C-alpha cells in the first residue's frame, strides 16, 4: 500500500509538472499546444540516453530540459507569426514526428525494444539518520506550505449567494476536524502499511472523508440540516474538494515519510519530484505575477493591443513556449525514471490530452488549479480502478472503457456547471471584450 501510494503520488506530481508547462503556454499566454507530449518525449530520451553514456545525471536532465526548450524555439520560430490555429496543427504534427523518430532511429533509441537499465537518481543512496530527517523535514515543509495554501483558499471562498453562515466561519470551525482527521489518516497509513486490503483503504480515503468533511462543520449548529441546505452547492463542492485533496495529500505524505525511513528508490524519487514541483511552481508563480506575466496575460487576451503598446509579442510567445517546453522536458526525465523503461509507446498523444484535461479541470491560468487538477485526475483514476470492480459486475475491458467514459461525462458536466474549471474565476468568463 505504501508503495502504491508513493507511485500514485509520483504520477500526480509528474503530471502536475507536465501540465504546469502547458498551463504557462495555454493558460497564461493562450498558445494552443496540442503536441505537448513532444517536449516530454525529448526530455525523457535526451536525459536517459546521455546518462547511459556516462553524463552525470543532473547534467543529462538539464540537457533534456534545454533540448525541449530548443524544440519550443524551433516550433515557435516557424509558426508563431501565423494565426494561432496553425500552432495547434503544427504542434500535433511535431509530437508525431518526435515519436516516429524515437520509433525508427533504432541506432539511437532502440526503437520499440526501448531503453532500460539507465541510471536513476538517488537510487544508490543509503541515507544516514541525519540525512533522512533532513529529507523528511524538507518534505514536511513543502507539504505544510501546500496545506496552508489549500486552507487559505477554502477560507477565503467567496460567499456567492450571501448564504449564512459564511464559508469562512464554516471552515474555521472545521479546523479541529481537519487536524483530527489528519491524525486519523496517520494511524490509517500505519495500519495499511501493516497490510490491510486495498479496497477498504480507498473506500476510506475517498468516500468517508468526503461525507465527513462536508457534513461535520454543520454539527456546530442546532439545526445542522437546515444550515446545510442553506449553503449553495458550490460551498459543498469546494469543501468536498478541499477535504479530498487534504486526505490524498496526507496519505501521500505519510507514504513518502515511511518510504524515506526504510529508504526505497521510489520514495527517494518522490521526494526529488516533490522538491522539483515546489521549485518550479514557486518560480512560475513569481513569473506570472511579475510585469513579464502581465504581458503574457495581455497577449492571451488581445495580441494587437499588446503590439500597439510596444510589446514584442513574438518574443514573449516564444519565451512562454520555450519555458513551458523545458518544464515538460524536466517532467519527461521524471517520467522515464519512474517507468525505468521507456519506448515510444509511452509517449502517445493521449498524454497531451490528459495534460489538457488537468489544466482545464483545475482552471486555465491558475497554477494551483493545475496541481489540484492533476491530483483529482489521478485520484479519480486510482479510486475507480479499485472501487468500480467492487461496485459493478463488469469484466476488466468494459470497466476500463467505462472509467474513461465517466471522465468524459464528468468533463462535460464540469464545463456546463463550472466552465472556468475548479479554481478559475467566474467573473473572467462573463466579461466580454
Amino acid at each position: 500500500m505504501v508503495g502504491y501510494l508513493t507511485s500514485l503520488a509520483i504520477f500526480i506530481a509528474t503530471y502536475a509538472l507536465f501540465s504546469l508547462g502547458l498551463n504557462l503556454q495555454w493558460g497564461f499566454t493562450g498558445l494552443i499546444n496540442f503536441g505537448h507530449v513532444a517536449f516530454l518525449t525529448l526530455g525523457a530520451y535526451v536525459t536517459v540516453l546521455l546518462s547511459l553514456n556516462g553524463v552525470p545525471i543532473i547534467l543529462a536532465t538539464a540537457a533534456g530540459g534545454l533540448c525541449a526548450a530548443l524544440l519550443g524555439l524551433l516550433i515557435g520560430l516557424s509558426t508563431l507569426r501565423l494565426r494561432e490555429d496553425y500552432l495547434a496543427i503544427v504542434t500535433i504534427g511535431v509530437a508525431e514526428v518526435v515519436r516516429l523518430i524515437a520509433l525508427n532511429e533504432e541506432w539511437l533509441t532502440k526503437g520499440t525494444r526501448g531503453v532500460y537499465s539507465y541510471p536513476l537518481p538517488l537510487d544508490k543512496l543509503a541515507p544516514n539518520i541525519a540525512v533522512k530527517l533532513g529529507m523528511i523535514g524538507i518534505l514536511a515543509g513543502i507539504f505544510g506550505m501546500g496545506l496552508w495554501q489549500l486552507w487559505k483558499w477554502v477560507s477565503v471562498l467567496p460567499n456567492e449567494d450571501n448564504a449564512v453562515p459564511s464559508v469562512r466561519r464554516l471552515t474555521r470551525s472545521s479546523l479541529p476536524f481537519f487536524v483530527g482527521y489528519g491524525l486519523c489518516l496517520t494511524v490509517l497509513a500505519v495500519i495499511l502499511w501493516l497490510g490491510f486490503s486495498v479496497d477498504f483503504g480507498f473506500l476510506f480515503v475517498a468516500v468517508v472523508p468526503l461525507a465527513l468533511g462536508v457534513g461535520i462543520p454543520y454539527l456546530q449548529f442546532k439545526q445542522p440540516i437546515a444550515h446545510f441546505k442553506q449553503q449553495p452547492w458550490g460551498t459543498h463542492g469546494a469543501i468536498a474538494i478541499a477535504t479530498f485533496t487534504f486526505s490524498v495529500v496526507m496519505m501521500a505524505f505519510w507514504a513518502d515519510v515511511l518510504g524515506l525511513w526504510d529508504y526505497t528508490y521510489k520514495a527517494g524519487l518522490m521526494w526529488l519530484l516533490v522538491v522539483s514541483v515546489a521549485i518550479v511552481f514557486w518560480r512560475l508563480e513569481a513569473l506570472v505575477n511579475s510585469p513579464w506575466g502581465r504581458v503574457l496575460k495581455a497577449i492571451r487576451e488581445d495580441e494587437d493591443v499588446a503590439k500597439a503598446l510596444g510589446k514584442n509579442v513574438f518574443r514573449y510567445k516564444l519565451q512562454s513556449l520555450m519555458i513551458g517546453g523545458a518544464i515538460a522536458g524536466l517532467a519527461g526525465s521524471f517520467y522515464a525514471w519512474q517507468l525505468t523503461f521507456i519506448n515510444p509507446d509511452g509517449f502517445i498523444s493521449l498524454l497531451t490530452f490528459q495534460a489538457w484535461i488537468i489544466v482545464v479541470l483545475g482552471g486555465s491560468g491558475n497554477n494551483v488549479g493545475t496541481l489540484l487538477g492533476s491530483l483529482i485526475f489521478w485520484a479519480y483514476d486510482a479510486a475507480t480502478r479499485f472501487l468500480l470492480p467492487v461496485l459493478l459486475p463488469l469484466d476488466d475491458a468494459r470497466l476500463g472503457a467505462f472509467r474513461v467514459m465517466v471522465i468524459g461525462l464528468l468533463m462535460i458536466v464540469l464545463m456546463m456547471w463550472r466552465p472556468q474549471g475548479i479554481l478559475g474565476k467566474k467573473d473572467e468568463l462573463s466579461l466580454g471584450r
Partner: protein
Amino acid sequence: MSYPLEDNPMTASQLSPLLSANGLCKSFGGIKAVQNVTLEVEQGKIVGLIGPNGAGKTTLFNLLCNFISPDQGSVLFDGKPIHTMPCHSIALQGMVRTFQVARVLSKLSVLDNLLLAAPHQTGEKLSNTWVFAQRPSIVNEEKRLRNRAAEILESVGLSHMIHAYAGSLSGGQRKLLEMGRALMTNPKLILLDEPAAGVNPTLIKQICEHVKIWNQQGITFLVIEHNMEVIMSLCDRVWVLAEGQNLMCGTPTEVQSNAKVLEAYLGN
C-alpha cells in the same frame, strides 16, 4: 498633387512635421483601399482625419502603425522612417494608437491595463525576472508606475474603478481607459480612432477637454472622427480622404464649406 498644401503658410516647410506619410498605397485583392495617400501631422497640433465610411481612414491608421505593411510609400516619424519597423518598435518610438472599437484587456484590472502600457519596464524582461522577480529595482519601478497610473486614472475620472475588471467598464469609460493607456506609454503622438463614437454627449465633451489638456502638455494628436462638432472644436487642420485618396486638407472651416467634401459625403 492636387491638394492645396502650398497655399497654407503653416506647412511642412516651416514646421518640420512630426509624422509624414508619402505616397502610401495598399490593396486588398482588387480593392484599392488606400491609393497614393499623403499626410502630415505637425508637432504640437491636433490634426483631424475625416472622410465618408469606407474612405480608408482606419486602413491608413493601420498603415501608419505598420499593423498592415504598405504596398508602396513611406512613413516618417520624428525624422525616422518607420514603415519598415515592426509595430511594437513604432510604439516605443513614441507613436501609439487606439482602436475604433475600444479594445481594453477586459480580464485584467483597470490598473493592470495601464501598468502594462508603460514602456521599457525592467520587470518585463525574462532575464530580469526569472531568478529574482522581487528585486528592489522592479518593485520600486512598479510603485512608481502605480503612482503614475493612479494620476492618469484620476485625471480621466476612473480612479473609483481602479481595481475593477476593465471588462466591467461602460463603452465611454473604455474609451477613456484606452486613452489613459496610450498616455501611459509617454507618447509624442497619439492616433485616436473615433474617440467619440458610441459615447454620450457629456462624455464626448469630457474626452475633448482631456485631448485639449494633453495637447497643451505637448502631445500631438491625429484624430479620426465623424462627429464634426468634435473636429471643429479640436482640430487645427483636417485631412479629408475619399475612396482611398486625398481629397483636400485645410482648416476645419475651410473643409466644411468645400464643395468637393460635401460631394464626397452627400453625393451629387
